[in-house]
């Protein structure tokens, strides 16, 4: 096996760095990356397994609704459940208070099973030789994880139950308020210190860390009109994250940045998402989509991280509806076009993933 290192085929590379040396909450991804869960199983599936270590995730907020907080909450809870160190920065005076709103993992008997059972899926279709299964998309890997049970890669979170205190206390959780910082050097130092505990070296990864920065350019922050400084900070954070075992997520309201800087921030992100509010009573949308009443917002996936590869990830659908199942579990669903009244002459809409094909302008993001 000594010769394996010099072989250029990725097949042998993956075998030699098998999952046995990864800590809890981590799994192998494509192209030699290691993934951690976003805390939302549906989002993990959409992104091809989760967020790769060393990547920067950016979420564009909608000023009209706090849906980005849902993403942050699940992200942070997932890390705490797996004992992953967490650094949380927000413009609030007391960011620690936010930890009290983190959801707890759903009890296993509450877990609903959505979709066909894994065994059924494997019966149908191709019978794939065992060693090639890992190349065939996310579904196979997910089912293995679920059967494991003990240390699940990703949890469903019950937004109605707060996270037990023991997950938060006695953990490496660092909270920081960015409201009064005159410049970003203090936050930069905190990030540097935090990431120095998680250096990346070849070999096993026992622990990965998470950084969550909320509403980064919020107007109440003193530095929020220092455009180039903020961009420098994001660039240096990205560099530090790239060379450590961690994932950083930054949410920001794009309307508060100039268009040119907004684009610069978007280019910085490895994974770029945006959330959008949904009007309470939009008759046009109600006619167009099934299940409109249950939707609380839209999630758009603009860019998926491409580390160690030049091939872009093209998703079948980029817009998903955010729903709260049983008013406690966050799920993402493809948009389904509602059946159209036959008298208008157009054909019945078929359910299935559809991004922008026949939608009217109000769904153009």
């Amino acid at each position, binding site marked *: 096996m000594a010769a394996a290192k010099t072989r*250029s085929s*990725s097949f042998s590379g993956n075998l030699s760095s098998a999952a046995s040396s990864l800590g809890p909450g981590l799994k192998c991804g494509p*192209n*030699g990356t290691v993934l951690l869960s976003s805390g939302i199983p549906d989002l993990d599936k959409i992104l091809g397994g989760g967020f790769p270590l060393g990547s920067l995730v950016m979420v564009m907020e909608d000023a009209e609704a706090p849906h980005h907080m849902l993403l942050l909450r699940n992200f942070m809870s997932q890390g705490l459940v797996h004992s992953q160190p967490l650094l949380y920065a927000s413009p609030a005076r007391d960011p620690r208070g936010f930890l009290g709103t983190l959801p707890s993992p759903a009890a296993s008997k509450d877990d609903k099973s959505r979709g066909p059972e894994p065994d059924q899926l494997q019966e149908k279709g191709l019978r794939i030789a065992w060693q090639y299964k890992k190349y065939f998309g996310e579904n196979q890997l997910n089912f293995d994880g679920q059967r494991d049970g003990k240390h699940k890669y990703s949890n469903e979170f019950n937004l109605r139950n707060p996270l037990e205190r023991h997950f938060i206390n006695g953990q490496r959780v660092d909270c920081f308020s960015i409201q009064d910082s005159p410049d970003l050097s203090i936050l930069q130092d905190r990030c540097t210190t935090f990431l120095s505990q998680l250096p990346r070296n070849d070999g096993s990864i026992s622990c990965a860390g998470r950084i969550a920065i909320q509403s980064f350019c919020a107007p109440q922050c003193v530095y929020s009109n220092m*455009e*180039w400084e903020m*961009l*420098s900070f994001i*660039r*240096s954070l990205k*560099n530090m994250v*790239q*060379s450590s075992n961690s994932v950083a997520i930054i949410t920001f309201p794009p309307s508060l940045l*100039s*268009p*040119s800087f907004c*684009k*610069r921030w*978007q*280019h910085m992100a490895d994974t*770029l998402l945006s959330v959008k509010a949904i009007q309470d009573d939009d008759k046009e949308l109600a006619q167009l989509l099934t299940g409109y009443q249950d939707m609380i917002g839209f999630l758009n996936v*603009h*860019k998926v991280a*491409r*580390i*160690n*590869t*030049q*091939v*872009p990830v*093209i998703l*079948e659908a*980029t817009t998903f509806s955010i729903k709260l199942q049983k008013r406690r579990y966050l799920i993402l669903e493809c948009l389904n076009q509602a059946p159209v009244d036959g008298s208008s002459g157009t054909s019945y809409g078929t359910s299935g993933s559809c*991004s*922008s094909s026949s939608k009217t302008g109000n769904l153009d993001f």
Partner: protein
Amino acid sequence: MNQRSSNLLDEALGLDQASEPWPLKGRVVAIEDRVETSGSFILHHLLKRSLSRNSSNVSIFIAFAQPFSHYDRVLRKQGWNLVSQRDNGRFFFFDMLKLQCPVGDEGITPGGGLIALYGKIHKTISALPEISQKNVSIIIDDLSLMEVAANGSSDHVLDFLHYCRTLTSEFDCSLITLNHEDIYSTEDGSTFLLQMAYLADILIKVEPLATGLAADVHGQLTVSNKGRNKASNFHFKVKENMVECFYPGRSRD
């Protein structure tokens, strides 16, 4: 020596004929991309072409965007081992990820870090054997991050590029740069892009299709080659080991 198929991109750049001198010699190539369609695959393609041309060709890669490991893996899938090329002195990698010019030093050493970078490039080229000096490609990934490193001073970045331009005339290097078009499309921001477009001999635009993204066609390329007075437009699909280029409506050349 290397049997490789050329594609529409090579044709548009004049790389399809194995002719001496290299068509990109002494030329500035500017690549403009967008958030939806990243143009870094063209850098990888040109690096590959530069390395495969002949054994005296040298490439200097100035990276602001990704660490060496990323490019190493990407080029490995295309059949090139950057580590051994680096050890053989055919590939130089300048990791600029941490470069940050100190704020407010404009008066003393204008664009401090960038001047040092230029000095380093010049020194590296001068130290090469005579035959290689005439066959150098400088690749920069990417210019918008160089601006961030220079604290937003696009003047300093343009100065740096003008200095690199002198290298193309002094040593006949080719200069290949990547920048993001959508950052500059606002009124006051367009100067930098226009300057770059003026400086460039070949301009490659990487854009999504008008109809959006698709799995079979990742976008469209528009190549304006001032030297050959030619403009081409075609679609592309990026794969792990190559990029497929084809005219609209066809799946391959």
